[in-house]
């Protein structure tokens, strides 16, 4: 690894000295991905900036720094209720997805790998169906079950999305796990449940935490299915932001956006500390 880095550096130096065309190409490439990087992050940073505006316009940079819209947000009962709804739905989704995803990932370990090959497309299929279609399907179905516009219906919709993700994360975690320990526990006369609790659980705790956090954030940020399935009383923060946005735009939406983005960091930091960043990027 270090050797190849050294070689690359050495080559870069020679290139810079001897081949101007290469240098131009390198600069062009840097400009290209730099532009993409800027286009990806700048809009979000500008939104954070506008949340500190003093007046009701969305000028950037703000004319006058102020926290007045944060105060506005914290004293608005509609936003507070949406916030409570979001936390409730995300927590329930996390628990349900962890149970479904982890049991499946645990059950599939060590099994003939062909079953995963068949299962993978089946589990991934829902990701290719437009969320609006899934939303409509569930509107019709939940109405028939009498669950339309309840918390339950939104938790179920979010779990359809989050459980497969938990499954994949847990599968990756479990594939690094030492199965002989569990087999030893079984050989020593433990029940499968005891083997799981005493031999497997301590090893995969951090993996479960990471998967749970990912499920939580997925539910917190999901918007289209929640838009169709919620009522005024059960709407989540993104849904309320959407309806507010379509009526009237003011900096309070920037405040809400900033808080939603902040929640991503709150969740990401422990995961990145537990695992490497590269690992997280490859799981999603």
């Amino acid at each position, binding site marked *: 690894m270090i050797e190849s*880095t050294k*070689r*690359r550096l050495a*080559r870069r130096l020679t290139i810079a000295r001897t081949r101007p065309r290469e240098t131009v*190409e390198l600069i062009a*490439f*840097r400009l290209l*991905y730099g532009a*993409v990087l800027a286009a*990806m*992050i700048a*809009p979000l940073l*500008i*939104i954070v900036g506008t949340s500190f505006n003093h007046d009701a316009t969305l000028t*950037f940079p703000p004319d006058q720094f102020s926290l007045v819209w944060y105060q506005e947000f914290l004293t608005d009962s509609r936003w507070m209720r949406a916030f409570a709804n979001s936390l409730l739905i995300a927590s329930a989704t996390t628990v349900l997805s962890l149970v*479904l*995803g982890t*049991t*499946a990932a*645990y*059950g*599939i*370990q*060590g*099994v003939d790998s*062909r*079953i995963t090959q*068949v299962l*993978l497309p089946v589990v991934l299929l*829902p990701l*290719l*169906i*437009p969320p*609006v*279609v899934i939303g*409509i*399907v569930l509107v*019709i*179905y939940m109405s028939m079950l009498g669950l339309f516009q309840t918390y339950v219906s939104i938790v179920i919709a979010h*779990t*359809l999305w989050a*459980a497969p993700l938990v499954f994949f994360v847990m599968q990756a975690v479990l594939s690094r796990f030492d199965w002989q320990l569990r087999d030893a526990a079984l050989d020593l006369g433990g029940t*499968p449940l005891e083997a799981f609790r005493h031999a497997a659980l301590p090893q995969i705790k951090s993996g479960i935490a990471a998967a749970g956090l990912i499920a939580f*954030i*997925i539910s917190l*940020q999901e918007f*289209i299915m929640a838009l169709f399935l919620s009522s005024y009383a059960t709407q989540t923060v993104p849904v309320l*932001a959407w309806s507010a*946005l*379509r009526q009237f*735009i003011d900096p309070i*939406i920037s405040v809400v*956006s900033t808080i*939603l*983005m902040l929640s991503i960091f709150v969740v*990401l930091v422990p995961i990145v500390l537990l695992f490497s*960043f590269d690992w997280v*990027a*490859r799981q*999603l």
Partner: protein
Amino acid sequence: MNGIADIAHSIQAAIDQRGRTSLLLLAPILLFKTIFFVIPFFILVRMSLHETDQSGAYNPGVTLDSYVDILSSSFIHGIMAYTFRTAIVVTIVTLLVSIPYAHAAWRADGMTKNVLLLTVVVSLLTTLVVKMYAWVVLLSPIGVVSQAVNRFTGADQVQLLNNEFAVVVGIVYMVAPYAILAIYSVLVSIDEDLIDAALDLGASRPRAFYEVVLPNAVPGIAVATVLAFTWSIGAYAAPVLLGSSSERTFAVQVEEYVISQFNWPHGAALSVIIVVIVFVSLLAFFAFIGRRDVGGEMF
């Protein structure tokens, strides 16, 4: 396709290997998916065959009227053409921005790599509402981008919002993080020494990229293409918020049928048509890729 035989064989092998209990652990998720995903889709198909009703959501009965209405309506044909055109433009733009970015993230190390990856992950996890709102703010007449364009071109007022341009920007902004990670996750499995070898043998950087990286990245690029295309077909938030009434996609029309007009059979029929179109496009794409003899690596 011998999928079912494969599953049966695998299950048998698994039972022989580990006993019955561990596969039972798969039951909860399969049951959940069946009850809340598979069955609802059958109900959707059934709903699309009901008669429409002016006063309620639907009338019981079996008819193909909804399909006939939708497929013969020139209004829907317009939506179809618009949705497809947008999806193709979005897919091309997404690939053009994602491939260099994923490549940069793969070849970079240390801080640069972390910044590049962190940006993608944060963007991916940010709710769609915030992402679309950001572009409303940026592209609005008083927004940063409009101001910059005005100053640069000397034009008085450039209309950047509520048009096709804004819709494409919005959808690319939604899909790009997923496309980048799909390509990135394939790139990391390529042996970097291969590129060093190509460079040592005198290839230029673009040539090394074209001959070594690109062929190996095909599975990732294929996944990115599929995601970009299918998600723009189903795009809802971007056309509603960033487009005008003439930027209407399938998804917007489905919502119109089901929520605004309370016409469930039409909404269900259009949903079924969208799903069919998505899967026919996928099959056609994989057939095309498969003919180039690389599709085997996909799944």
